[in-house]
């Protein structure tokens, strides 16, 4: 593309035509602070934090949306610019509940960081009337506290544009403006799917998950309870960010060590039940193909996606795999097979999960997710909550040794660990389904067509003489696009993987929050996904059906995939919902 030259702070900078001032400045390694701006998602120039001086312009301009033109002269740090940013911040702070000491985001709040960097000396300078607000805790998975909301609209943009849902937006106008749902309904009364992407992009403490750290610590302290924990694949790929490790660091060993020191009786791995999911789902797929079942089969690991399907594609719930998610399969096996092995009663086991996800908090209390008369999973915590719990009990994470998971529910394969990224479930299922159908060992295990961060991926494989067409979508806006094509007959597939969050679980709503300026410059999804693919490559066992712990589970307990017992424990049912209803 054609480059044009402009001057920023007196230096010549060459940038592609069509770039914004912000992008051109970044090429010259000049930092301009941003707050509301999220690349491709929220480009509205609303917060005025990124203002700069442009020669000849009547007023300061928002660099995040202002395009460059030939010969333009820009200054990013004149006294006028700095004073304007400071004043804007002070005005934002005048309508902001400044309880920083007790705020969940203290230390990684973008507003707090800007106040520090831009030298806000008196945060109460413009104090006066504040917009009245209430706390919305109607949803199972999260809390909205609008007293800390700065109306940046990042949450609104991600809900509407990325996820295609739009259950939150700006209501009223002027000083009375607040972010909420229609007719002041609580989020829990809407068709919110609990994906938590709004929390992931919130710059302040206005949005957070409903924490259950204290309930888990109380269970651990109760000697009559046997408290076990499972960790999803994507958690190990991101938890380190909370403790200063670069994005894309695998902290599996330290994570296991931390969980043991927190006091869990057994430290298990959701990878085990991811392998189990593959056994059941590959069996279900083969069964549907051979016996004329409903196709395409669509994966069911992502509860945000499930709820979306129930609301927005209720006529396609028959396409959903009846398999519970790995989290729920784990819980059901823990309170049956493991309970019997360990001589425990299901009601004495407290089953905790650490998930990159907020929808998992919603999933654990669904009906038909309690195979043993008690909930399969009792508490589901996010990656962020685990980090808080580690800090709370005084563990120095960086100084921990690397430890492993406990047997028998701690063993997972390379096929399981890639569940945490878009395309991973498909690849894992293909490894098992192809070998089952052909009876031959795969020459190459990598199905690279379904890898990568593209929103929708398609591939076609010849399996035992049959053309198998597959598709993978992540992010619910992409899911909608793909499913509309399926419904209209424009595209036909046998097997579809859908994950609710863009990029899959590695970018889940429960993962560590990265500030806008990081999200805008680095693909955090790709960096985290690489952790999982590396882990798969390094695992001596890379196919779910070769997991010895899974083989033993079937031989000694479940019988075979799809058996009556497996069905009772590992499969579930769905409901049909409407768009404007919960």
């Amino acid at each position: 593309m054609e480059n044009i030259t402009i001057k920023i702070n007196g230096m010549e900078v060459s940038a592609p035509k069509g770039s914004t001032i912000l992008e051109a400045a970044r090429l010259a390694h000049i930092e301009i602070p941003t707050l509301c701006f999220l690349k491709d998602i929220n480009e509205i120039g609303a917060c005025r934090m990124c203002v700069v001086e442009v020669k000849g312009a009547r007023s300061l301009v928002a660099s995040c949306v202002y395009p460059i033109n030939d010969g333009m002269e820009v200054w990013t740090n004149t006294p006028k610019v700095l004073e304007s940013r400071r004043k804007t911040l002070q005005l934002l702070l005048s309508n902001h509940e400044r309880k920083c000491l007790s705020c969940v985001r203290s230390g990684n709040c973008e507003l707090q960081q800007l106040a520090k960097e831009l030298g806000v000396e008196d945060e109460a300078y413009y104090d006066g009337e504040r917009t009245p607000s209430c706390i919305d805790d109607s949803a199972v998975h999260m809390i909205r506290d609008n007293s800390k909301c700065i109306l940046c609209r990042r949450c609104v943009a991600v809900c509407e544009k990325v996820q295609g849902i739009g259950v939150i937006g700006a209501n009223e106008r002027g000083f009375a403006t607040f972010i909420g749902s229609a007719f002041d309904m609580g989020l829990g009364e809407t068709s919110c799917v609990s994906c938590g992407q709004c929390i992931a992009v919130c710059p302040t403490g206005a949005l957070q998950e409903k924490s259950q750290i204290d309930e888990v610590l109380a269970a651990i302290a109760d000697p009559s309870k046997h408290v076990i924990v499972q960790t999803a694949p994507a958690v190990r790929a991101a938890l380190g960010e909370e403790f200063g490790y670069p994005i894309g660091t695998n902290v599996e060993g330290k994570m296991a060590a931390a969980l043991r020191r927190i006091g869990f009786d057994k430290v298990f791995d959701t990878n085990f039940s991811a392998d189990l999911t593959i056994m059941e789902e590959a069996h279900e797929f083969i069964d549907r193909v051979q016996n004329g079942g409903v196709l395409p089969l669509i994966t069911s690991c992502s509860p945000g996606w499930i709820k979306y399907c129930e609301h927005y594609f209720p006529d396609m719930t028959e396409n959903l795999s009846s398999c519970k998610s790995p989290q729920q399969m784990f819980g059901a096996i823990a309170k049956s097979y493991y309970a019997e092995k360990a001589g425990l009663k299901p009601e004495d086991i407290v089953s905790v999960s650490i998930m990159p996800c907020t929808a998992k908090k919603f999933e654990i209390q669904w009906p038909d997710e309690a195979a043993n008369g008690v909930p399969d999973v009792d508490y589901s915590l996010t990656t962020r909550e685990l980090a808080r719990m580690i800090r709370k009990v005084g563990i120095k994470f960086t100084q921990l040794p690397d430890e492993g998971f406990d047997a028998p529910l701690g063993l997972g394969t390379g096929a399981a660990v890639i569940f945490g990224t878009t395309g991973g479930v498909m690849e894992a299922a293909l490894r098992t389904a192809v070998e089952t159908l052909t009876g031959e060992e795969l020459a190459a295990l990598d199905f690279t067509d379904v890898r990568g961060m593209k929103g929708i991926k398609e591939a076609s494989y010849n399996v035992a003489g049959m053309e198998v067409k597959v598709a993978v979508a992540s992010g619910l806006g992409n899911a909608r696009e793909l499913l509309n094509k399926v419904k209209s007959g424009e595209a036909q597939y046998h097997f579809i993987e859908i994950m609710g969050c863009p990029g899959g679980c590695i970018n889940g709503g429960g993962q560590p929050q990265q500030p806008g300026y990081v999200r805008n410059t680095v693909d955090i999804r790709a960096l985290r996904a690489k952790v999982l693919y590396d882990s798969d490559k390094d695992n001596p066992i890379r196919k779910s059906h070769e997991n010895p712990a899974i083989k033993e589970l079937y031989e000694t307990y479940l019988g075979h995939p799809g058996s009556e017992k497996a069905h009772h424990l590992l499969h579930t049912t769905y409901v049909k919902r409407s768009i404007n209803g919960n």
Partner: protein
Amino acid sequence: MACKKDRVPFNGTPEQEAQLKEVIARLKDTKGALMPIMQQAQEIYGYLPLEVQTMISDETGIPLEKIYGVATFYSQFSLQPKGQYQISVCLGTACYVKGSGGILSKLEEVLGISNGECTPDGRFSLDSCRCVGACGLAPVMMINDEVYGRLTPDDIPGILAKYK
């Protein structure tokens, strides 16, 4: 978020619904259709309650919140029906300096609703307006076509009692 209020029960008729659906079918594929649809819906029903906005959302595929956001942004849209007795309190300059703010507060207190709302029984709706051309009688309010002037807050309960 604002806190929840009691809502007046919805009394839409099948004829109104058919009329609205016809409007939506006619407009929904044009760009920027939402505002005209909302304007016509308000003409049909007199206001835009949850039931009407849900119909618009279901028929157009536009998220309900987006419609509500527009409805609460523009003052031309009303979420409240007009009551059998429509009260307008003048907040124009002359009435205001003569204390019409206190009249409005008293009405809000006695009726248990805020400016712009309707009582749950559908009897009274309360609005403020700017000058009814009776400045000599300030402060002034109107109930339907009846004008009441030289008001004090203490007059309010007696006047409302006439409409029970």
